[in-house]
Structure formats: C-alpha cells, structure tokens
C-alpha cells in the first residue's frame, strides 16, 4: 500500500457554489421556520399535547443516530485494525460530527424555549436519561474532535488507536442513551422495551454508513478523484449486513411485543391497521428501506454498480426516517393503557392525530443541510479526503 496523501478540495467550481447556495437556502428556510414557530408558539405546528414530538424530532433523532454510526468507519480502522478503512477515518469523524451538529440544531430549535439552552447546559438532573444525553452529545464532540486531531497531527498518530477506542466506546454509550430515551418510558405501550437501546445502535450502523457512502461517492465524483472498487464494494457489503441486522432487531422487537398480550393492541396498530403508520412500516421501512436496498446491493445484476449503491443508500436513509416516524410519532399516536380491562368511552383513548406542517419539515431538512454544508466547508479547509482512493492506493492486498 502506498502512502496516503490527504488534500483539501478546491471548492471553486460553479457546482460548489451552486451546492452551497442550495444548502444555504434550506438553512434559511429552516431558520425562518424556527422564527415562525417560536414567535407564534407551537400552535402553528401539527404537534399537540398528544403528539408532543413530531417531524422535527424524527429528523433530529435520525441525524443523531446516524452521527454515531458514521463514526464506525474510523472505528473499524483504528479499533479493529482494518487497514483498508484507514484512509476514510478522517472523513468518518467529520461526517459524524456534522450529522450530530445538524441533529442537535433541530432538537434545540424545536424546544418550547430554545433561549433557555443555557439552563439545559448548567442544570442537570442526573436521574434523567435526557440530561445524560446532553453530556453524551457534548462529550462526543470533544472526543471525536480529539480523535481527528490525533489523526491529523503526525506526532499524535500513535495515540489515535487509544482515542479511537474511547470514541468507539463513547458512541456505543451515546446510542444506548438515545435508544433509552424511548426504552425507559414505562407508560407507553410502544416503548418500554430495553431492546430499543441495542436496536438504535444497529440502526445507527446502517443509517450512518448509508450517509457516509453517499458523501464519499459524491465528493470523489465531484472532485474527480479516483475511488476504487475495493473500498466501495466493501462498504456496499457492510451496508447490506447492517440492513439485515436492523431487520433482525425489528423482527425480535415486534415478535417479543406480540408475545405479550398487553401489547397486542399497539402491535396490531403498527403492523395491521394503523393507517399511515402501518403503511410507513411496511412500504417505507421494510420494503423501500430494507428489502429493495438489499436487492440492489446483492443482486448480481446491480451488484457493484455505484448508481445502484447510491440509490440503495438513499433508500436506507428514507427507510430510516420512516422507521423513526413510526417509532416516535406512531408510538405516541397509540393511546396509553390507562385502565386495563376497561374501555374508555370519553375523554381519552382515541388514536392521536398529527399532520406535520411545512415549517416542521423545513426545520428537519435544515438539519440535514447544516450537516452537509459543514462537511463541504471543512473538506475545503482541512485535508480530510485522500487525493486518491484508487485500488492500488487504498487496498493493502491489491494485485495489479
């Protein structure tokens, strides 16, 4: 394997400025939406006292979950010592930080009182998994920042494995924390399952990698740098494995719930007659977000085709957003079991209605735009991307 040389992107082309302008427009739209929602109050959103977390939270949690997953590539290189992934480590750290920043932006800007963020940073209830998450997110920025420094600074390279292990451990705890936001809610039928924590970890593997693959392929195509099949095909295989792993956890989660009679109502709701949630589950999450990407990745006719891998990654991301929509919004739409053995005739118990508004959608998309613009600027400023990832450079076992 030859020495990897990293180089900034030029970022001077018309395409670059068009991309920045496009993303900037999304960010402006997001900020306008925030002003609209905060000025008027949340009555202008579709959220209400029953669906308290809506579309912004779907995007925020998707981005946060994907963030920790995007770090996997760096972890595979430094923790598990797979040399072929090493040239991707810097980008992996960057994508992780950018996604987290985007996710947190959405989360914070949807608060009823975002101006009180300082309270969230200074006043901790250590019994709250949410407070722990604030610490975990801040710590993630710090640790991944140090990790990137170790990778960038030649003198520090020798510590990158140790810091990499710390970052890997931290990200596992972080996603456990994110999953536990739901796993610990005893009163809600759809949550209250410890399996949510490991399921979120596996979801992060898939979503983060899908995002990473798209960023990698786009940046190499647009900067006209060589990107060999050795790396791309490995990432493609890995994505397939992660998608199967998510399916496994989803199956165990639902089968486990079906076994308990008390949860048959909510299972019936999600799997059979939940309207939009059932459709999003089967068509969005399972077919579009899992089965079709798997077919694209493994079927002989599309295997190795980059456009098809790109499509598969986009579908995994859309499926992931559908999955989080079903978990977050669907889980709230189904009423809590207030009186076991009794039917509630009046006052509570209907399926809660939620129609997301444009402002909520724009805020969520703004989070993705923030993540992308951060990546685009930082690869221009700092040498994140190897100038070549051609097979003879990247693959330690390459035979020419």
């Amino acid at each position: 394997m030859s020495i990897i040389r990293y180089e900034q992107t030029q970022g001077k082309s018309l395409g670059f400025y068009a991309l920045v302008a496009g993303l900037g427009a999304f960010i402006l739209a997001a900020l306008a939406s925030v002003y609209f929602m905060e000025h008027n109050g949340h009555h202008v959103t579709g959220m209400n006292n029953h669906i308290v977390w809506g579309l912004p939270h779907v995007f925020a949690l998707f981005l946060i979950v994907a963030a920790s997953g995007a770090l996997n590539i760096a972890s595979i290189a430094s923790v598990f010592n797979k040399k072929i992934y090493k040239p991707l480590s810097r980008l992996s750290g960057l994508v992780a930080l950018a996604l987290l920043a985007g996710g947190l932006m959405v989360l914070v800007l949807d608060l009823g009182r975002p101006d009180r963020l300082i309270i969230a940073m200074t006043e901790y209830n250590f019994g709250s998994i949410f407070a722990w998450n604030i610490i975990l997110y801040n710590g993630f920025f710090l640790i991944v920042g140090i990790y990137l420094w170790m990778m960038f600074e030649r003198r520090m390279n020798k510590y990158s494995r140790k810091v990499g292990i710390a970052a890997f451990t931290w990200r596992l705890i972080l996603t456990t924390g994110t999953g536990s936001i739901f796993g610990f809610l005893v009163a809600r039928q759809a949550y209250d399952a410890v399996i949510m924590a490991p399921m979120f970890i596996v979801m992060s593997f898939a979503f983060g990698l899908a995002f990473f693959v798209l960023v990698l392929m786009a940046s190499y195509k647009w900067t006209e740098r060589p990107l060999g099949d050795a790396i791309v095909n490995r990432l493609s295989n890995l994505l397939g494995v992660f998608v199967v792993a998510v399916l496994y956890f989803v199956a165990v989660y639902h089968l486990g719930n079906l076994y308990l009679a008390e949860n048959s109502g909510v299972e019936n709701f999600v799997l059979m007659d939940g309207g939009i949630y059932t459709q999003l589950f089967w068509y969005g999450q399972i077919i579009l977000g899992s089965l079709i990407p798997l077919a694209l990745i493994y079927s002989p006719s599309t295997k190795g085709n980059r456009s098809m891998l790109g499509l598969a990654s986009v579908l995994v991301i859309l499926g992931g957003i559908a999955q989080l929509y079903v978990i977050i919004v669907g889980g709230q739409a189904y009423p809590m079991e207030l009186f076991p053995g009794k039917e509630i005739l009046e006052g509570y118990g209907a399926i809660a209605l939620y129609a997301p508004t444009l402002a909520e959608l724009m805020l969520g998309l703004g989070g993705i735009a923030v993540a992308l613009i951060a990546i685009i600027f930082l690869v221009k400023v700092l040498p994140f991307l190897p100038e070549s990832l051609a097979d003879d450079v990247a693959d330690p076992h390459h035979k020419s």
Partner: protein
Amino acid sequence: MDSKINRRDFIKATTATTAGVAALGAGITLTTYVNANENPVTNEKRWGMLVDTNRLTESDIDGMVTACQKENGWGNETHSTGDQKASWIKKIKVKDTATQRISNLALMCQHCEEPPCVDVCPTNASMKREDGIVLVDKHRCIGCRYCMMACPYDARSFVHEDITNQKEHMPRGKGTVESCTMCVHKVDKGGQPACVEAVNSDAVIFGDLLDVTSNIHQTLKRVQSTQIRADLNLNTAVRYSGI
C-alpha cells in the same frame, strides 16, 4: 495610582451596597412570606385526594373542570386546536369490558410519589415538593416535553401560544409545560383545591394522607380504593374508589 485606589474603593462601595440591598431584599421577602416561614413545606404532610366515582355525577365533574379553569386561568387559548389546548383536568368515562359497568371520573395529575415526569426532566424543572405536590418550575422548563412523553396519565399540557390575562398566582408561559398544581397557592394558605371545593358532596375528599385524624386517611382506611395504573408502582396521591 489614584485612579486605581478609587476604582478599588468604588468596587468596595458597590459590593457593600449590593450586599446591603440584597440583605434588605431578603428581609422584605421574609416578611412578605412570613406564613411560608412559619409553615415550611415538609414531608410530614402528603397532600392527596380521594375521588368516589360512585357518588360523583357527570355534572360534578364538569363543575370540577370549570372551577379549575376559572381558578388557574387555562382553557381560553384562542389559537390552539383541540389537542393543543391546555387540559389540566378532564372528564373520563370508562366501561368495564367484562361487566359493562360505566364509571365517570375526573383525571388530572396524580401527584405520584415516584413521578416519571420528575425522573426524566433534564433541568429539574419538573419537581416534587416535600409534601408530595408535583409542580413545574416555569422558569426552568425548556419546553422539551419529555415529561409529557413519560407521564402515564396524559396529565400535562404544553402552552402552544402566547397567554394573556394570566392569574397572578398561576403564571403560565408559551413554550413551557404545565399541569394540575393541586391548587398549591390555596393549599399553602390552608385552603382546598378549586375542583374539590366545586363538588357539593363528599364525592371528592382532599387532605393530608399521613394525618391519621384526617377525613381522607380515615376514609381510605375504611373503603376500597385504587390507584390508576397501580401496576406502575408510582404510589399516586390521587386515589379512586368505585372503579
């Protein structure tokens, strides 16, 4: 040099004045709320409520809801849609699926001994007083709504719009979460919650659960009662009989 000494003197003088004003301010506060000082909130009391659904009529419940709205100034939000409007207390009608028996009850914050809303609140804005009343500190609430996700009783509301004509004793704020306070402002002065006062019979009893001489303690000892979602082991302060 001179200017430095002057600056130091200035700082000294300012500090002394600030400390003086603060001390005076504290003194004024203590005088104003001397009652709270004499009767500190302790865990020797636990305020609770017993709702007898056999005696509580539907119009009683409507009266409870109206009294709460009037006392605490919620329910007149103009922009919020049905599910966005505040709802501190509501009427629930349930039918036993096996026996077809129908009961009506008023559902509000159950003031749990182990409140999930307090557990999950990241900023300690959701809190439980020593006497068991669960409240939201509206200056600390960042509006994350995690408490609403955690509450098993659908008892909390988020303020979805600007609020005008608030009650002096019950500040509310756009972007924060609120719920039944057990009319803490009345209870601290020896009164009863507005909803309890609104019912003309003994169908709703309020009192100190720990006081063996209290009506509520005696009644709970005598009649069969239940907690909603007793399986969650939250030890609620609001109890129901007849369901």
